[in-house]
């Protein structure tokens, strides 16, 4: 196995995996967005049509899917800030690895705040 050249920024460590995760979450969010605009457009059809489709989302499986979607959005947003700091902050490249762990830390805090609220809405009934 040839070794990766020394001194590169992004091979096989935090930098590469954050890039992979950014790409995967962005891909997923895009396809959610297409569906999200299409179903929300039903408000233009009739209140009954919109409520009927949204009603099919109100179950625990979709609720967990929404939690996963919010997780993808939160990671993509925080890592996006990290990317901007790498690009525009003079010390961004030096701290890119540390900043990924900051992203993971803030992600855990935000999700720890969001999940109990969301899951109580999903599982707590009306």
């Amino acid at each position, binding site marked *: 196995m040839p070794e990766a050249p020394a001194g590169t920024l992004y091979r096989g460590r935090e930098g590469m995996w954050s890039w992979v995760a950014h790409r995967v979450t962005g891909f997923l969010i895009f396809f959610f967005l297409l569906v999200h605009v299409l179903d*929300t457009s039903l408000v233009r059809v009739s209140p009954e049509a919109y409520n009927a489709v949204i009603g099919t989302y109100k179950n625990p499986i979709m609720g967990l899917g929404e939690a996963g979607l919010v997780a993808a959005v939160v990671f993509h947003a925080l890592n996006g800030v990290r990317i901007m700091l790498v690009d525009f902050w003079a010390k961004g490249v030096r701290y890119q690895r540390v900043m990924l762990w900051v992203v993971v830390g803030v992600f855990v805090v935000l999700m720890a705040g969001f999940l109990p609220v969301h899951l109580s*809405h999903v599982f707590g009934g009306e």
Partner: protein
Amino acid sequence: MATTTPTIAAPRSPHRSSRTSWEMYGWIFMRASGALLLVLIFTHLIVNLVMGGGVSQIDFGFVAGKLAKPVWQVWDLLLLWLAMIHGTNGLRVIINDYATRTGTRLVLKSALVLAFTVVVVLGTLVIFTFDPCPVGAPADLLPSFCTAG
């Protein structure tokens, strides 16, 4: 180990690209729109999924109540356009990276442009032509201001 030193051609005049810097504008747009989208989407998620009844409150009355207000019309219009351009450009980069055949790239990018056009035109039309109190709809499904004197 190579035994001969490869000869390298002498440097020529700097390469001048005839292309405009669209890729650079795309790169800048991803960062500028990303920063705006962070604020737009986090607010969107807090208002729709955290405050009030969260996801369980979402029905026609909730959405119509929001879309009747100019602030949320502008908010959602910005969200729609920025997120769709940001996401479409991201998908374009992914297609360029992984679809190696010209024909495959053409098919995937055509589908991407079609999806972008349909979703953006549809979403924009809905925001501009939406009526929160459609005539003949059951009053209990409508936002409360529809029936208030």
